[in-house]
């Protein structure tokens, strides 16, 4: 039962990741590309946290409290390292979003389009 549920969760997360990549590859609007990129990012983050999860029942977050002994804490707490990595990834993802949206806005101001097919034409027009 547990392995079946875990397999379902993992496969759905990978499907979401590939859905996001498919969206980035095939949608032509730049803002839509940013939205789909974030969906792929979320799926990867969730997968990382899932790797750190443990199959013990009263599972604790990695915060030491006084009313549990240290041995019990070691036996029941989840792995803290993926959480630290994902915290970094969330921050970097937001920084990336800020940069990408400002570039898209500035491109629209200068050329009047955020469509990837039109952007190719605009660039070709600039060369000539």
């Amino acid at each position, binding site marked *: 039962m547990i392995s079946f549920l875990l397999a379902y969760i993992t496969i759905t997360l990978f499907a979401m990741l590939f859905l996001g990549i498919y969206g980035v590859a095939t949608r032509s609007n730049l803002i839509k590309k940013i939205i789909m990129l974030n969906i792929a990012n979320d799926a990867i983050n969730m997968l990382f946290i899932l790797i750190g999860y443990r199959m013990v029942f009263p599972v604790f977050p990695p915060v030491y409290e006084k009313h549990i002994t240290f041995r019990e*804490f*070691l036996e029941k707490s989840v792995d*803290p390292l993926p959480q*630290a990595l994902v915290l*970094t990834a969330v921050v970097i993802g937001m920084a990336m979003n800020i940069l990408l949206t400002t570039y898209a806005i500035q491109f629209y*101001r200068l050329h009047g389009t955020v469509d990837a097919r039109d952007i190719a034409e605009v660039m070709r027009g600039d060369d000539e």
Partner: protein
Amino acid sequence: MKRDILVAVSLLVAFLFIAYAVTVKNVLGLGGAELRPLGEFYLSNAFAHEGLTSHSPEVVTAIVWNYRGFDTLFETFVFFLAIMGALSVLRLTDEQEKLVRELEATMPHRQMDLIVRATTKLVVIMIIAISASIALHGHLTPGGGFQGGSAMAVAALLLFAAFSKFTLERKGLTLKHTISAYAVGLALILATVLAPVFLYNGKVLEINLLPGEMGLFNLDVGEYLAVAFGFLTVFLVLGIPEWVFKVVLRGELND
């Protein structure tokens, strides 16, 4: 259309391969009940009284600021660079800023009705209190500078929506002030990082040499200020209406 199908088929093949590897071969090691050795080291040493310790019961913060301190420091600078990149794309000179302010003053001054404004005031006070609690207790409980700072940015966004950007700027929340507060936050982080070198002859980022929990607390406060006002700076610049920007750009072309 043909290209879409090609993309879909190649992604599907990759997906099937990965699904086989993850479920049948279990390459990610999911479903185990035991800890990995590195996780066990962090869990057992974060709050020990001697040895490699950071004196923090919150293991994630301990990893983020003590065991992987350089990573987090440069991550803060990556965030800084992203915001500076955004501001340099949407740049305004001093004269242009003056022109923007004149043009915005001619706009009709719109805000939402009384009920929304009164509720927003209450909610914003609550969000600011919670964000301060998240940030200032960040080294003891779940949370930290980044989480508190982004909650604070949400409070400012609520104010943007209910009142207008113009009201906030008249109250003193201008671009200059937010950038200065951002710089203060970054300076606090740098000072805390460099303090062990000058005070205790340690190395950069050895913040467990500082007395008590001061190192982690200072880093939390610095990150709180930096993230909250970094977001606010970007939203203040992006909040300028589009027609104002068009006038400014046209002026730039005519020069």
